[in-house]
């Protein structure tokens, strides 16, 4: 399954990328995070504290245990600070 993965704020800075295309078999967001952390040290750094990682699936807020089924775009970022 091909997904676009987006990173924002300090997650983007730690990963060193704002966007990448990934071929994954991950069933949940957690699976995807684990896959990424195995791939490279920079992801381990970015995802070292999962409490401050938020995720959106196809631009809708989701949980780390949400299913990746039929998802086209995943975004990882810290808690939002708008307003």
């Amino acid at each position, binding site marked *: 399954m091909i997904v676009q993965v987006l990173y924002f704020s300090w997650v983007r800075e730690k990963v060193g990328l704002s966007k990448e295309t990934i071929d994954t078999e991950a069933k949940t967001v957690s699976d995807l995070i684990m896959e990424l952390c195995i791939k490279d040290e920079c992801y381990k750094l970015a995802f070292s504290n999962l409490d401050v990682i938020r995720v*959106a699936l196809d631009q809708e807020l989701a949980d780390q245990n949400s299913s990746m089924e039929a998802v086209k775009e995943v975004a990882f*970022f*810290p808690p*939002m*600070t*708008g307003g």
Partner: protein
Amino acid sequence: MKIVVQLEAFDPGEELDNFKGQLKSSGALVSFSGIVRDIPGGLNRIEIEHYPIMTEKAINKICSEACLRWELEDLMVIHRFGSLKKGELIMMVATAANHRTDAFEAAEFLMDYLKSRAPFWKKEIGSAKASWVVSKAVDEKALSRWETS
């Protein structure tokens, strides 16, 4: 219903007048403006990053929810991204209703959700260092006021 996410600076008075100008029946108009504040040691600028497609979806959803919950004639949300200087407006919300309670509550609701549920991230660039603004527990807690059981 004006919802805008923009790079450009804007004038709060002009926006308030435009918003007021097109109202037909409201007796109460509330506005909230968020302004870039200084930081200890001096602020050079702030940078606001956002997630474009999701930003629009999230703000639209928050606004629809506000229209369902309160009797509003109209509402407005303007939020900037990019580089902003001290004293500039980060964002502005306006609500118009027959009764002041509706206008006040809807504006507070919009602010609480924009703070923690719209994909914006602020970075403060000071003279010495740059750091991402950390979300506050109090902002997350503010949302519980609006939870429906």
